[in-house]
């Protein structure tokens, strides 16, 4: 389930560590990927952002 952006409590030290370790792991994994694999990841990220924009507009009723 998604964490709502509006309900933010600062992360605990354990959560901060998790964030850092996850970022390090993602960097290690991405740096081993081929260019086409990186392309696919980046395209997917941008698609997610685009769909997010559409959802936001729908929510606002515009």
């Amino acid at each position: 389930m998604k964490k709502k952006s509006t309900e933010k409590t600062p992360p605990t030290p354990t959560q901060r560590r998790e964030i850092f370790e996850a970022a390090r792991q993602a960097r290690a994994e991405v740096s081993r990927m081929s260019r086409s694999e990186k392309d696919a990841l980046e395209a997917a990220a941008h698609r997610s952002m685009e769909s997010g924009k559409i959802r936001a507009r729908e929510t606002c009723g515009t």
Partner: protein
Amino acid sequence: MPERLAALDTEVLLAIEGGAVNCVTAHSILRSVGFLFRATPTVMQELEKAQYDVRREYTASLAQNLLGSGVLQALGVVSTRMDDLKRDVTEIHARTMMERNMLEDAKYSNDGDIVALIEAAYADCVFFITTNKELLDRSDALSLALIQICGMRALLIVHPDEIIEAFKTL
């Protein structure tokens, strides 16, 4: 005032979304003095990867929020894809910097760190904001290498706390 750009490293963006006080404060300070923010291509790829990290549900949810709900735009973070020529040049520069052992003795850092820095410099960022100690410990050498090897502008590699300290009189 001309637009100024600061690149946010992956864990900093995730921490901002999570509400980490120092990262949120540094972001707010820079925003208040007219900065916009960059998520480099490498950072976008890592966020996409992180949102499917089943072993780290908390971080995965933060990455999902950042990518899926227009949060990046609301934070003033832009991300543009690089063309093939820029990517070729980035890879060549990254290889050169790795050959010079810029990250010698670093435990966690890898060429992805170098690529992220070069992407940020390519995007004319003034700051690369990270909590990665291994990059921060080598910040001067890395900044100089970006200028000397890559012929790029100076990029200050800084911790969010350094931003807060530097701008605290505002």
